[in-house]
């Protein structure tokens, strides 16, 4: 049974938020390239940055499995710093060489970094200049994934926001699902929407440049990811209108997300129940053993991917876990309104980070499970805490009904493992 908050309980809507300003222990927006380059299969991401940026991408990608990945770094060196005109020439030279080498590239993103921003290398202008040279074969766009501007998943936001002004225009009504999803999840959602009679449904980003959706004043969009503030703004500038909803994580989140679309399209509740019923039952059944294992366990979220709020809502309401602290890089109150309302009242929320102080709080709370980044996980394990490294939550298909139990398993496995090792 899923405990449903009473109607009078507004959850964390007006809850105070601990605002932290200190050392952050999070990736920068460049990291988004690691999944975006797999999703957008004729796009290439060229970071204009330093050796650090190249090293970050390589380390975050974890493994070097691609002979030639669809991303690279143009490493700025001393000579580029000597004169900006030269840096632009150099960039043109690098891009020309790259495009000669890789005829499969149809969309090239020039991705800004901290160094390129600090030296004020204008990548937008560079993209225009190069775009004129290489159109129609290649479209060239730019965005910033720099660590001084973006945190981890904000890189995807910046990338999609750069894409939106180039989407074809349409006057036709349609639904747009926004945020990179695993292909299998996209297919499931497509089936559900078609069952509800909602259509046409398109997804942003698309696998191929040619399949990018059209957008216009009749477009309504649903955010599938909670970190897409700039993309949403760009879509609204094109006239699209957001369907406010919680995020499709867990059974409850997925149903509420679909219900928001159903309501907007005038699909009645009975139809919704009928279409989603089998998947809901299946997912609840699959969740039950995880819930048995996790109910009552205390969980602490370090800020990382911006998925923390919906995840906290899911583990609290569907798995019965107790929230000690839910940290997030930043709180977008408007996009998070539905999530906040569902969160148990009194949850400690924190925004931003002072990692040392947050570690102190975490140790004092002594939670059963800590969700944190790769730099913190093993050290906390060594201190006796059980951790779930958060990047796995970004790199795994977790959205929708069929993935709800997989998502729960990601939380259950570390605890189960610790039990196994302790029992031996």
């Amino acid at each position, binding site marked *: 049974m899923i405990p449903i908050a009473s109607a009078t309980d507004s959850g964390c809507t007006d809850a105070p938020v601990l605002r932290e300003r200190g*050392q952050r222990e999070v990736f920068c927006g460049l*990291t988004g390239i690691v999944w975006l380059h797999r999703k957008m299969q004729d796009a290439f991401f060229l970071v204009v940055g330093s050796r650090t940026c190249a*090293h970050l991408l390589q380390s975050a990608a974890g493994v070097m499995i691609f002979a030639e990945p669809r991303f*690279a770094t143009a490493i*700025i060196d001393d000579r580029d710093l000597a004169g900006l005109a030269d840096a632009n020439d150099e960039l043109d030279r690098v891009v020309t060489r790259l495009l000669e080498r890789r005829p499969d590239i149809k969309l090239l993103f020039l991705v800004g970094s901290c160094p390129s921003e600090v030296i004020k290398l204008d990548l937008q202008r560079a993209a225009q200049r190069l775009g004129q040279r290489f159109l129609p074969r290649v479209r060239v766009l730019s965005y910033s994934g720099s*660590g001084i501007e973006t945190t981890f998943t904000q890189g995807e936001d910046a990338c999609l926001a750069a894409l939106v002004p180039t989407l074809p225009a349409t006057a036709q009504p349609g639904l747009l699902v926004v945020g990179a999803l695993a292909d299998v999840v996209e297919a499931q959602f497509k089936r559900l929407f078609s069952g509800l009679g909602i259509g046409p449904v398109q997804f942003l980003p698309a696998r191929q440049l040619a399949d990018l959706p059209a957008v216009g004043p009749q477009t309504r969009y649903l955010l599938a990811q909670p970190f897409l503030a700039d993309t949403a703004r760009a879509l609204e500038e094109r006239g699209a209108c957001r369907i406010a909803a919680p995020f499709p994580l867990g059974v409850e989140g997925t149903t509420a997300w679909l219900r928001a679309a159903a309501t907007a399209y005038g699909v009645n509740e009975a139809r919704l129940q009928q279409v989603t019923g089998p998947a809901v039952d299946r997912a609840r059944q699959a969740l039950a053993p995880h819930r048995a294992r996790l109910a009552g366990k205390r969980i602490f979220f370090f800020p990382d991917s911006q998925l923390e709020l919906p995840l906290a809502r899911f583990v609290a309401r569907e798995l019965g876990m107790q929230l000690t602290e839910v940290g997030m890089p930043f709180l977008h109150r408007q996009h998070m309104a539905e999530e906040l309302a569902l969160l148990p009242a009194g949850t400690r929320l924190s925004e931003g980070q002072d990692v040392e102080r947050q570690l102190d709080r975490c140790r004092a709370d002594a939670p059963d499970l800590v969700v944190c980044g790769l730099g913190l996980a*093993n050290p906390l394990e*060594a201190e006796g805490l059980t951790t779930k490294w958060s990047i796995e939550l970004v790199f795994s298909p977790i959205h929708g009904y069929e993935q709800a139990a997989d998502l729960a398993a990601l939380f259950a496995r570390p605890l189960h493992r610790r039990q196994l090792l302790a029992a031996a």
Partner: protein
Amino acid sequence: MQLTLWTYEGPPHVGAMRVATAMRGVHYLLHAPQGDTYADLLFTMIERLPRRPPVTYTTFQARDLGADTAGLFQQAARDAYARFQPQALLVGASCTAELIQDDPGGLAQALDLPVPVIPLELPAYQRKENYGASETFYQLVRALARRPAEGAPRRGCNLLGPTALGFRHRDDVQEITGLLLQLGIAVNVVAPLEASPADLARLGEAAFNVVLYPEVAQQAAGWLQRQFGQPFTRTIPIGAKATQAFVAEVAALAGVPVPPALQARASRAPWYSQSVDATYLTGKRVFIFGDATHAVAAARVAAEELGFAVVGLGTYSREFARDVREAAAHHGVAPLITDDYLEVEAAVAALQPDLVLGTQMERHIAKRLGIPCAVISAPVHVQDFPARHSPQMGYEGANVLFDTWVHPLMMGLEEHLLGMFRGDFEFHEDAPASHLGHASASMAVPEPEPQPDLPEDLPTMAATWAPEAERELHRVPFFVRGKARRNTERFAVERGVMTITVETLYEAKAHFSR
């Protein structure tokens, strides 16, 4: 601007982190944006250290740039000192902070902290990780090593160079320490690994220095020689012969005799290599790439201790390119000095060696090309931190080299049987060497790659294969099939043969047989 897909070395501040993280009682305050904190995971995930690197990042943001990044830096310095109470504080800038020119050294000095503050100037747009490690260690030694009292007795030696995230540094230190102990030579200080600032202060008390990793420690050792008159070792004890030479070198420096137990036979590897089963290793063509120290040592071991033929030798460390050039000349091959892994891949593809000894990058290259490979050098992967003791140096290290280099190859008799019965249903390409088992088929067989990621410039085939010849080609053992195909096609093209028949295949085989 250089187009880079994968890099062999990180930025120089990562080198500084490797030194700081290896040590005790040191903290590194790094002026850097938030994303640079990824570097922590190198230590916590790849090396699996159970503690965070002792690094505080200021994590300034765009909105701070117009305001007061210097103030932010000083606040972070005060907080980090108060929280961690280090015995020495390293301060520096990552690539981005270098551009905003806040002068971390000056800012930290101005705080008047009651411990030594060591500023690091690591030019991020010119230099790389190993330079950063070397420079950091050198600056620490300069700042902290105390001049020994006049006439004070000098005892034992220091072991210099091992860092965090080093390729088998932990195990090498244990091995060499044991070796020195057997010689009756005391180890005064090991640094930077596990050393505290107080330990660095005592460096001058040793009679001489053992430089295990010149990439990190040669600069500091040179300074110690000039300042305190401490000589340092030149032999890198990788391989049984080099270990023997190393033993002689340190024994001479310490003025002690070499006990008979420390002759070359202290290692099993030379005997294994001499045993008849190893005959099949003769002339195996090996391609070697890595940091200069490990690459040069590997080439020597391969040629002199295993009887391999070195067909390629290279390094990504330009600082030590001279050593590699000399070694390449000695082995009669052209040196490959590059940090572009595509160049390395092209070289391996052209040479079609029997074995690749390289870094994690070459492991991937070799996997793609279906060539056996062993890792001999950083950059490292989580697999390069095995749970067991697995040194590269010393007599046990020589044993490890024998095992890990020979293991990916077919065993002698097996290779013959494969040659004799190549049509046998069990000897198909998915059946790797029997001792590798089924699970490790991927060691010898290229993994399927996502299509769009394959290199575009694969050579196009000029001659076509007759079906019968194609079938015959498939009877050739898979680990030489690539070479056979290439050679035959080259042979056909050179002779203007349009259709490759079974005859062409064997003519080419005869032509290219060595």
